[in-house]
């Protein structure tokens, strides 16, 4: 039983880690080595690199190429990364602020039909982006928001609201009301109590919510690709556009870009590991 356990864990670990490790290896190869019929997985001096050996020559060509414009492209990878960062960060701030206020309202006040409202908020998350994107596109054309940072910031803010409200409601429900009641008794207004008592208590919850909003904006593809195919293109939309590249896929660049793109997410995952369950289930599961 113990051996079986260890075997299952080892297999799962390899399945999760090897593709990521291979991504790192691919990002420091020359393109020829990435399409070699022999797996090249050991970095070695150039002398050992032959067509049938497992050795490959290390190069920073692909990683350095992230700041260069490639054939057939208009922008460098780093410019797309900047678009992703701007859109991700701004929309995250907006979602967390709006979501926290809304969650506080549902957490502390008797709102008529609050259950139905919360269901409505959650149901927006279940919507396939493709089902609402056409009217949004028509609206964005009308207001010149297509292909702009502002357009996607707005859309991602709304898209992440369901997550922000549900997560924050879980966190705010855990803060004892006695804290605010004490502040009210001291003569503070509701708004003051919210800002000065509740928000500091909800710091962790807001940080967790922010990370989850940031990750889902960072990774989003459906809206990014349909609305921002020409301007303010984010990394996922840029990457998917590489599919069917006439020159043949620039695999080292793809791997290098993917590596740079997923690195912050990996860091966040490690930092947030205690909150993953909550974040992935809209805060519904107790830990």
């Amino acid at each position, binding site marked *: 039983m113990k051996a079986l356990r260890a075997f299952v864990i080892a297999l799962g670990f390899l399945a999760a880690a090897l593709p990521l490790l291979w991504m790192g290896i691919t990002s420091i190869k020359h393109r020829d080595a990435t399409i070699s019929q022999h797996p090249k997985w050991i970095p070695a001096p150039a002398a050992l690199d032959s067509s049938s050996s497992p050795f490959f020559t290390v190069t920073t060509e692909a990683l350095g190429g992230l700041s260069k414009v490639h054939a057939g492209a208009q922008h460098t990878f780093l410019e797309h990364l900047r678009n992703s960062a701007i859109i991700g960060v701004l929309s995250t701030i907006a979602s967390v602020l709006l979501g926290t206020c809304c969650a506080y309202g549902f957490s502390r006040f008797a709102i008529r039909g609050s259950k139905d409202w919360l269901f409505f908020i959650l149901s927006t998350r279940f919507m396939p982006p493709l089902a609402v994107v056409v009217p949004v596109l028509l609206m964005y054309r009308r207001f010149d928001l297509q292909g702009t940072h502002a357009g996607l910031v707005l859309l991602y803010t709304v898209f992440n609201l369901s997550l922000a409200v549900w997560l924050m409601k879980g966190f705010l429900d*855990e803060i004892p009301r006695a804290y605010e009641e004490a502040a009210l008794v001291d003569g503070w207004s509701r708004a003051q109590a919210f800002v000065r008592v509740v928000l500091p208590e909800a710091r962790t919850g807001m940080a967790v919510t922010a990370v989850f909003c940031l990750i889902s904006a960072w990774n989003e593809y459906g809206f990014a690709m349909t609305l921002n195919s020409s301007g303010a293109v984010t990394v996922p939309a840029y990457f998917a556009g590489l599919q069917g590249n006439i020159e043949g896929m620039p695999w080292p660049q793809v*791997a290098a870009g993917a590596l740079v793109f997923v690195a912050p997410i990996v860091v966040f995952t490690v930092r947030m590991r205690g909150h993953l369950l909550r974040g992935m*289930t809209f805060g519904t599961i107790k830990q």
Partner: protein
Amino acid sequence: MRPPASRERRPLLRAEGRSTVRALFTPQLLGYHFATMRTGHDRGGALKWSLVGPTLLLLVAFNVFPLLWNVVLSFTNAELVGEGSRFIGGAHYARVFSDPQFAIALRRTAAFVALAVSIELAIGFALALALRRDFPGKPAILTTLLVPMMLSPAVMGLYWSLVLNGNYGILNQILGAVGLPQPQWVTDRDWKLVSILLVDVWMWTPFMMLIALAGLSAIPASIYEAAEIDRASRWTVFTRITLPMCAPLLGLAVLLRATDALKQFDLVMAITGPNDGATQTLSTLLYQVVFRDGKVGLGSAYACTVLVVVVALATVFTRYVDRLRERGLAR
């Protein structure tokens, strides 16, 4: 875990353990009356609507309004380029239900959801069982196992098409080394959907594992101790205790994952593109019709049909969460 008292919505004013009348005369509450008199925010009133209002308005503007617009569009012959469209009645809907392409995409998506969810559930649950006990290095291994579900499907999908490449992909090189067949994963008609399924399983098995672990850790040790006293066999313990006690949370995981897999778009786009006869799912069919063929009206009719399914699933999900909450398993 939150204190049970805050679960019910009780008036803010009622002090614990005192009658309301007596509570009204405590010195603290006289101060409270003064505070609310000054600000006028007694039961929330304007404040509560200014807290929840902006969010609800935005959601209505970006979800409800587009949906209604979609319904209108689905009765017209609107196109992506060019102005002017006219009302054409339910012709698109007639087409949706007689269109073999839609039927195929629907069936394929259903099969994809069923396969992906069940494979992920099985592997995820097995991993969770294996990871149940503590061992040195567990946190690091657990975190590594969870990474794939946090990554971008579009970016990882593109990268996976390198791994899956039939000629030089590392997967086939490994399979060849151990003497297994090496299918042309991303170009062979019969294997394309399997490739997408494979990447989906890679990405989302951790999610099932995560929830299964939560389910397992919620089973009280005393039940296992009792089973041990009764000399229950391992199999009995598994089928009578572990599985049934995990089932409610696994059900939640299945629902969440199913609604997500139903929308599957990113991986299909990154691995085969939207118009591949062997892999077209509902979302990619929608994309093809609207953005490649430019038929907005028809696409909207597809979208409205798909939405019925989505709304049904969302309803099931919230009902389910409610039931979990009654049993103390959810917030």
